[in-house]
């Protein structure tokens, strides 16, 4: 199916929640075209030449920041990386003041990774002349991750509608899971989330997902198994007793994987904890694991998002 729209309605990408299915299709289709750029000997197109993109990272990030930066460079944008540590933020400057100072230097887009939910929206509401791209805000949303996940599923399985996706791990604290639920339910996939009850947030079933507390139930009949990182600092506190017990109950091993559909794929947004939520045999399974493909596709999807928002900006 090809998207029936040719532009995004908002100047910003704050989350998947507000996107229409057509807009999601448009981003994924556009990303298909850009994927090829990264395979050329000269990996660069002039789409965003002369545009300044600021990567405002208020929280540590490797994969997402690098992926955005590569995407920006392949589109010929000028890029500037701003990280909270060692900056005015450490001197007590508020996020709004930091952003307004950056905006005074006329960037076209700001890619923001924030510790707190809603921070990208706060900037978008106050900064009418710059496009804000959410690169993850607290436990709220991580839209480009969900888009690259959808791109990868579509590429591997040929469709999103009707696909059985099981997301397993720290559902409560994951922005990835929220964006994925929005995206996958909009595209008519079937979503199951699985975790101990202590890691399932209140009333998540109202988001249109099935909730289970057993790994086997989640894996049974799944086409896509998406493992989430368990934050090591949560062990031994109140969420679960120990990493050992977590692995025994929710770790994905080859034996447990046998219950999934024969062509099921394994995904992980990274960074992985091998031997905690996922066994190395599974993570490195050459046939089923698409974890590194997700990373490759991340660049193409982010190029598409930057292109579509930057393009809209050019028209103004």
């Amino acid at each position, binding site marked *: 199916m090809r998207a029936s729209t040719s532009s995004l309605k908002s100047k910003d990408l704050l989350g998947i*929640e507000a996107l229409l299915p057509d807009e999601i299709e448009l981003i994924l289709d556009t990303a298909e075209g850009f994927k090829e750029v990264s395979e050329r000997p000269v990996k660069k197109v002039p789409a965003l030449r002369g545009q300044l993109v600021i990567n405002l990272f208020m929280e540590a990030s490797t994969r997402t920041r690098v992926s955005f930066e590569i995407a920006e460079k392949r589109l010929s944008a000028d890029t500037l990386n701003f990280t909270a540590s060692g900056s005015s933020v450490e001197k007590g400057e*508020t*996020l*709004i003041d930091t952003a307004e100072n950056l905006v005074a230097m006329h960037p076209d887009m700001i890619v923001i990774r*924030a*510790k*707190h*939910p*809603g*921070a990208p*929206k*706060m900037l978008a509401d106050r900064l009418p002349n710059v496009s804000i791209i959410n690169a993850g*805000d*607290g*436990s*709220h*949303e991580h839209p480009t991750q969900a888009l690259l996940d959808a791109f990868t599923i579509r590429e591997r399985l040929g469709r999103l509608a009707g696909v059985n996706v099981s997301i397993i791990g720290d559902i409560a604290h994951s*922005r990835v899971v*929220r964006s994925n639920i929005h995206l996958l339910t909009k595209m008519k996939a079937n979503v199951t989330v699985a975790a101990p009850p202590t890691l399932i*947030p*209140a*009333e*998540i079933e*109202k*988001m249109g997902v099935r909730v289970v507390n057993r790994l086997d139930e989640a894996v049974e009949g799944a086409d896509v198994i998406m493992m989430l990182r368990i934050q090591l600092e949560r062990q031994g506190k109140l969420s679960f007793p120990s990493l050992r017990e977590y692995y025994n109950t929710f770790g994905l091993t080859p034996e447990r994987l046998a219950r999934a559909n024969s062509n099921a794929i394994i995904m992980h947004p990274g960074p992985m904890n091998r031997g905690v939520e996922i066994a190395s045999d599974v993570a490195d399974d050459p046939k089923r694991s698409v974890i590194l493909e997700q990373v490759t596709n991340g660049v193409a999807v982010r190029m598409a998002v930057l292109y579509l928002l930057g393009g809209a900006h050019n028209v103004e």
Partner: protein
Amino acid sequence: MNLLITNARVVDPSQELDAKLDLLIEDGVIVKTDKRIKANVETIDAKGLIAVPGLIDLHTHLREPGQEHKETIATGTRAAVAGGYTAVCAMANTLPPNDERAVTEMIIAESRRNGACRVYPIGAVSKGLKGEALAELADLRTAGCVGVSDDGKPVWNAQLMRRALEYCTMLGIPVIAHEEDANLTDGGVMHEGYFSTLLGMGGIPAASEETLVARDVILARVTGAHVHIAHVSTAGAVDSVRSARAAGVHVTCEVTPHHIALGDESVQSFSTNLKMNPPLRSKEHREALLAGIADGTIDAIATDHAPHHFDEKNVEFDLAPFGVIGLESAFPICYEHLVRAKVIEIDRLIDLMSCGPARIFNLPGGTLRNGTPGDVTLLDLDAEVTFKAPFQSKASNSAFIGQTLRGRAVTTIVGGVIRYDIRRAKRKTNR
């Protein structure tokens, strides 16, 4: 000090009165309520208006001493009279806290000097609000405190709560309880439910409030003391109060206008003016509050007026302080959501906002009987009001900015003196 109000519809639930009457105040005291009074004093023609006992707020943060950048006694009481309040109870969590007589006396002296309405200080339960040792509660009572509370946080130590309740039976004042289990709250910033999940924000479960309410009604029962539950926001808390009251426990409670009017779904805007503690709750909890108002379980509407500086609220939702202002919006909001919405009649609303508060905290006022203070509010139920900055309050962290409603206080009389009059206020802004 002498004032005649003519042609008003006088609504005074304390006397079950609702009639067209004149009302005469002499030397700051109501001396006569009758049809057609003749007196050669300053006269207000209140045709088309409702005269009610001055509104009383049981829960106001005036911020002085110590946080005058947020609010002062002068500005907070100006906001009060603009909202129809003739008296407010000033919470103890100032800097320093009102945990000793000198602070109480300062608050009283400053409100006499620069206050627009009566101010009744609430003392701290514990020294420094630390929840460790009792403050000098008898001294605070003598200095003028009408109740004690560590509001802003709970009295976590159950033994301290028990002792405070016991001690206050001797003083004849209530212990006002902010009910919250900090372990269950666990750094949460909004109601725990579908919307906290959707927004990825830390949730404050209803159980955080309900477990402490359950504890404190038990402690009130075993001590025979009066516990007043501040800002009740959950169905379970209303149930606890209702059943304890039925069993003869001396427990009273208040709800805020914002918990009546707004739900947690509104937090999707990420507006920090929707961040308060307890948080805006979900529909089933709001419906339980309305049921508690309708059946009399809830004794009072209190604003929890909590002014904060613009800069403090101009940050990410997680980082903003809890609290919203409420004195200037309370009556219009309650009139809209309770009377116009046909939950209760106007006389019951006046009971919740004036007579009830006076009754449960044993305060002067809350009535228009002869011989009581001349504290009268004139309401115009058709007048429009739009909530927007600047407010009379120093702060503008209102949850209702942009809303236009009908029904508001137009004149506020404290001890026979006109402390607020919308016509004068308008002239002033036009100048």
